[in-house]
Every structure is written in structure tokens, then in C-alpha cells.
């Protein structure tokens, strides 16, 4: 209510300021004011429309390529959908039956728990090692840094499947180089040792492969961030007697907090839905039942055993979980920006 008199007072001034002006300076000022007024009155619409238009192509592509399959997935998860339906048989709707079956299945919870633990271990390892490598790179001489960068890039550029096959050979039970090298140690006989048959050891090998391929991304991103931390602040802290750890904890980390946040979210998402490495490793050895993570489990249920409806339900549940995790972090980072 307090605004109303202001508004009514403003209207007459702009109305009277227009027509009667004769001097050129006045006219110019009027045009200026006119433009400002137009922007004020229509501003919101003009500003809102252009970005929206610019977003249309990207949105359209996303809707067609990701949105449509997602809708299909959602629909299938409420249907009876097996191999016969893939080839054209009618698919009756069954309500929440698929979800009830999945949530009531102990295997699903086992797989989900295993996936979360596995992802947590991998994220912590990749973030820790990646940060250490990034810090190392800031201390290295140029030539050495180039060497480390090339090494990281090669590991990162290697296709996941190729990596698993190569690591699989190295860990091979009969002819693997790791068993051979370990057996060269006096008193050790590892020939014929299966690295994949024990689930814990299986995930150890999987962690080596996945961490080896995630560290480069983490290291490069954090290294890029580290170069942006102002050196004078670090020098000042050093003069004040802050040791390396304190400087990282109280200066570097707060500067790079948003980078750490984004990289962690990406790692969580990538490691939760890991598929290629586990699936390929299961073909080499190990017991599927004890080593499936959620991505592989969805594949086994839907494509492997032909129950696309149950697989769809699990996938939808996973999408919800992932969105909950990222929503928490996105909200946290928005709050951070507003402060």
C-alpha cells in the first residue's frame, strides 16, 4: 500500500516530461528517459523471452534423445513387458505391481547397498588421489608436469572396455603378469590364484580399474582450479606460519569448494551407474550374483532375463535416488552462491 502513492506520483511526471520539450538537449534526455521507461514497462517480457528462445534447440534435443526414452521407461515400468512385447505383443498395464515386486525383493536391496558402498569407496579414492596428483602437478617442473599430464590423459582416453580387458589379462588366473611377478618374491606362490572369485577381491580389482580411469578427470579439473588461487594470499599465510595442510584446508579448499562439489557429484553419479567395468569383469571371472552393482543388475533383469518391466521399475527407482542425491548438492551449491 505504501508503494501506491509513489506510483501515482511517478506517472504524471513521465507523462508531462514528453511532448512539451523543445530544446535539443531536452529531447535527447527525453528519448533516453523514454527508452528507460519502455524497458521498465516491458523489460521483463523482453528479457525473459530471448533466453527462452535460445534454450529451445538444446531443450528439443534433450527432450527427443533423453526425455522420450525416459517417458517410455516410465510407461514400461507400469506394464507387463517381456520379450514377447518387444516383438509387438500387447502390453497390459499392471499398476504398481512391478514396483512392489522389486521393493519386496531382497536381492534388490542387497545390490543397492553394495552399489552405494562401492560408489562411496571409489569416489573417496578418486577424489583423494586426484587432489594429491593435482597438488603434485603444481610443484613439478614443466617437463615432468607434461609427462604426468600425458600419462593421465592416456589413462582417461582409454575406452573402459579396453581397460577392463587389459587389466583382466594382467590379473588372469593362469597366465596373468601380476600372479607371475608376485610369485617371483621368495616364498610366495600366486600361480593359479583367482583375483575375481572372492567378491571383496573382485571389487578390489574393479576399484583399481575405475579409480585409475577417474583420477585424471579429478586431477585435471582441480589442477585448473588450483592455478586460480591467488598466490599472494598463500604467501601471506605462509609468512604467518601456516603449514601446507593448513594452507590447503583454510585457503585452497574454500576457494575451490564449488569445483570440489561439482566433481564429487559427477563422480557419485558415474560410480553409482557404473556398468561396463563390472559387466566385462564378470565375463572374465567371479560370481555374478555376489558382484552385480545396480547398473549391471538392471541389465541382467531387463535385457538378460527378458523382464523389461521389472528392469524399468528398478531404473526408475535409481533415477529417483540419483535425483535426490544431486538435488541435495545442487541446493547446497545454490545456497553457497547466494551467501
Amino acid at each position, binding site marked *: 500500500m505504501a508503494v501506491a502513492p509513489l506510483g501515482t506520483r511517478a506517472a504524471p511526471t513521465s507523462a508531462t516530461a514528453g511532448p512539451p520539450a523543445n530544446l535539443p538537449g531536452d529531447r535527447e534526455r527525453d528519448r533516453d528517459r523514454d527508452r528507460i521507461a519502455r524497458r521498465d514497462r516491458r523489460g521483463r517480457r523482453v528479457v525473459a523471452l*530471448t533466453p527462452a*528462445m*535460445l534454450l*529451445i*534447440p*538444446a531443450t*528439443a*534435443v534433450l527432450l*527427443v*534423445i533423453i526425455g522420450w526414452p525416459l517417458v517410455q521407461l516410465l510407461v514400461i515400468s507400469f506394464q507387463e513387458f*517381456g*520379450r*514377447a512385447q*518387444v*516383438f*509387438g*505383443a500387447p502390453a497390459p498395464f499392471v499398476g504398481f505391481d512391478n514396483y512392489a515386486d522389486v521393493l519386496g525383493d531382497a536381492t534388490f536391496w542387497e545390490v543397492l547397498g553394495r552399489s552405494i558402498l562401492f560408489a562411496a569407496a571409489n569416489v573417496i579414492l578418486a577424489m583423494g588421489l586426484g587432489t594429491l596428483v593435482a597438488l603434485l602437478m603444481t610443484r613439478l617442473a614443466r617437463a615432468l608436469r607434461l609427462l604426468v599430464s600425458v600419462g593421465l590423459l592416456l589413462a582417461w582416453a582409454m575406452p573402459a572396455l579396453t581397460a577392463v580387458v587389459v587389466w583382466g589379462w594382467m590379473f588372469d*588366473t*593362469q*597366465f596373468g603378469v601380476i600372479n607371475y611377478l608376485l610369485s617371483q618374491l621368495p616364498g610366495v606362490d600366486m*600361480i*593359479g590364484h*583367482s583375483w*575375481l*572369485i572372492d567378491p571383496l577381491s573382485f571389487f578390489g580389482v574393479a576399484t583399481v580399474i575405475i579409480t585409475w580411469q577417474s583420477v585424471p578427470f579429478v586431477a585435471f579439473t582441480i589442477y585448473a582450479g588450483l592455478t586460480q588461487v591467488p598466490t599472494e594470499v598463500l604467501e601471506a599465510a605462509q609468512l604467518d606460519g601456516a603449514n601446507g595442510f593448513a594452507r590447503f584446508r583454510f585457503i585452497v579448499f574454500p576457494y575451490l569448494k564449488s569445483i570440489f562439489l561439482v566433481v564429487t557429484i559427477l563422480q557419485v553419479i558415474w560410480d553409482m551407474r557404473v556398468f561396463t567395468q563390472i559387466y566385462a569383469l*564378470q*565375463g572374465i*571371472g*567371479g*560370481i*555374478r*550374483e*555376489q558382484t552385480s552393482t545396480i547398473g549391471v543388475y538392471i*541389465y*541382467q533383469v531387463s*535385457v*538378460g*532375463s*527378458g523382464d523389461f518391466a521389472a528392469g524399468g521399475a528398478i531404473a526408475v527407482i535409481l533415477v529417483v535416488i540419483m535425483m535426490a542425491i544431486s538435488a541435495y548438492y545442487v541446493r547446497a551449491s545454490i545456497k553457497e552462491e547466494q551467501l
Partner: protein
Amino acid sequence: MRKISIVAFGAAVALALAGCAAAEPAGSDGEAEGAEIRVWLVGADTPQEARDYLKETFEDENPGSTLVIEEQAWGGLVDKLTTALSGSDSPDVVEVGNTQAAAFTTAGAFLDITDEYDALGGDDLLPGFVEAGSVGDAFFAAPYYSGARVVFYDTALYEELGLEVPTTLDEYIANGQAIAEAKPGVSGIYFPGQDWYNALPYIWENGGDIATLDGDEWVPALSTDGSIAGLEMVQEVMTTASVAPKDGNEAEAQVPYCAGQIGHLSAPSWFKWSILAPADAEAPGCPEREASLGVFALPGLDGGPAQVFAGGSNIAVSANSANPELAKKALAIMLSDEYQSILGGAGLVPALTSLGDTVGTDATAQAIAQAASNAKLTPASPAWAEVEASGVLQDFFVKIAQGGDVADLAAETDARIAEILNP
């Protein structure tokens, strides 16, 4: 306005590009001149000579058209066929394992070829395989070849240790144990944990089975007395006669064989060619050991050939084939006497029973004939392919190889198999 039209143009291009991927191939009904027929063969089983013959004959008979053979792997085949056959760029002719065929014939993935039955060979076709490829009276997938499992063995090792070719299953196991004992690091009987096909004879010979049909219900049978006796034999072989990886699979068994680490190797008959592959082949074998490569049919518990797994393939035309008439012509060539004789010459049992003698008369051929005479199939359920694809049997035998409790594991696996077979 210019900005807006650029944005609109961008959106239109994006939509058009996205649309391309989903577009149906034009003229999917018309028999295009100069069409390309894609044939999916699985594994290295089909010899190169047969592949060349198929391509040349087809292209001679259908001028302007081409035939492309795309080789697929046995692992994960069911998944791959499900996605490929339901898509718009489906292969035209596909090979499928005989125990996997029912999953696709009942789902409507294959073209009905009942009218071609007589032209393809009629009652001359292998009966068990015709059954595997049919639903009721409708015929969908023709037999391609059958391949019984035989035992390859190292005759040099036999001479060195003074062993004799076994006549019963117990003697076979004893021979394997003798080799394993005398030669540390050598598998008397090579038996990696995931190799469940080779465990079947032990179960069947002891009177057990995986599952039996009672009315419309499949009753799992791994916990029956016969099966348990067989499974205990399997465990004995795996733990006392084999040093193969407990969680390994049977693929690439020529590598340890050629490294001199295998006494007996039970494998499909065509595996001989993997062992004897030239040293410069993509998957090299050891042709220099041909002289010491012996072969016999796995002996049964009471002598005679054991009941082994009747492996083999069916061949079908995809229901989504863009050129079904041309695809049927390719199928006809693959079931012709000439083509099937080439398969016979390579140690595969031809799909036409009248060509049985093309397998030859050497030791391998005799072993194949003996093994095939008593071969058996897995449960004939459309859901059987799902049991195979789920990996439940691989997991089961890996745990047996590890020395787990047979009765507990059998009960657990029975429950899982029953769940899949009776949805």
C-alpha cells in the same frame, strides 16, 4: 526478428537431426534391387569355406544383391538378438543356439517359414532341432548343425604315464586324477567353474536332471538324489583333477592346451580346429601337436557313450527383415546339400540326416557319431534361454568348484531356476 528466425532454424535442424536416427528405412516392404542381406553367424563354428560358398552362391543367384556375414559372439547372444531383431535395422538371417531358439520363436521374432519346410529338407531335417525351432505346427527356425561334445586328450601324456583310453566314466575320472597327480600344474580334466555344459553328463549319467516337466509346471531337479550324486562327481573332478580357474569360462581353452597344461579337454567337436589353428591365425593354436591329439566320446557310467549335451544351432529369418524373400533364399543355400556337406567335413553334424556320413570316418568322426547317438537337450521351455542368460548355472558351478556344500547350493539354485521357468 532475425534472431528469432535463427533460433527457430536451429531448433528445426536439431529436430530434423534427431529425427533421422529414429526414421524407418524407406521402402521396407519392397524387394529392392541390389539389396544387402546381413547374415549373423555365431562364433567360429562355421568354417571359412562354407562362408565363402554362401556368399558366392547367393551373389551368383541374385545378381546385384550382396550378402554380408557378420560374426557374433556366443556370450550375451540372447541379449544382443533381442535388441537387434526388434530394431528397424535387424539382420536378415540369424543363427541362434538350439536351446535359445524357443525364446525367440514364441516371442514372434522370427518369420514363419512353415511353407518352406519341405523345400528346406522336410523330414530329412534333424528332428530334435525342428522341434526346437517350432511352436505347435508353425515352423520358425530351421536346424543349422548339431555338434556333440567329445573329449580331446594328449596321447603323449597317455603313453608317458601308461594310461589306457577309458571305457567308463569312473575310469575317465581316474585317468584325469592320475595325470593331475603326476604332473603338477596340469589339469588332468580341464574343468573351469563356469563350464556348466560339461557338468550335464555327470548329472544325467547318475539319473538326475536340471528340471522335469510335470503337467505345465517345471519341477527343478538338481536336489534329487541322482543329481546330487552327479554334482558330487563334478566337484570331485573340479577339485582333484583340474587346475583350471575356479571362476573361469571354457572359451580359449586352446591356450592352456597348447601350453601343455591339459590332459583331457571335453569340448564341441569343431574345437579341434581351434586347437590346430595355424600359429599366425588371429587366435593361434598349435598345429604341430596334431600327432598327439587324441579323441574319444565321453564314456558313460556303465560303459558306452555318456549322455552328453546336444549342442548346435538353428537358423532363422528375422520377422523385421527388410528383404524376407532374399533372406529365405540365403537360408535355402545354407540348408543345401553342398553347404551342409562342407559343415560335415568340418566335423559338425549336418542339419540333414541323409548327409550324416559327410562327417567322415576318422577317429574324430567316430567319436562324434558315438557322442551324438546318446546326446540330450536342456529343458524345452521358452524360458530356458533366460536361465542361461541369467548366469545362475555359471554361478552355481563356480561355487561347486570352490568346494561349497553341494546339497545347499543345489536347493538354492533349484529355487532360482523354478522361479525363471514358471513365471
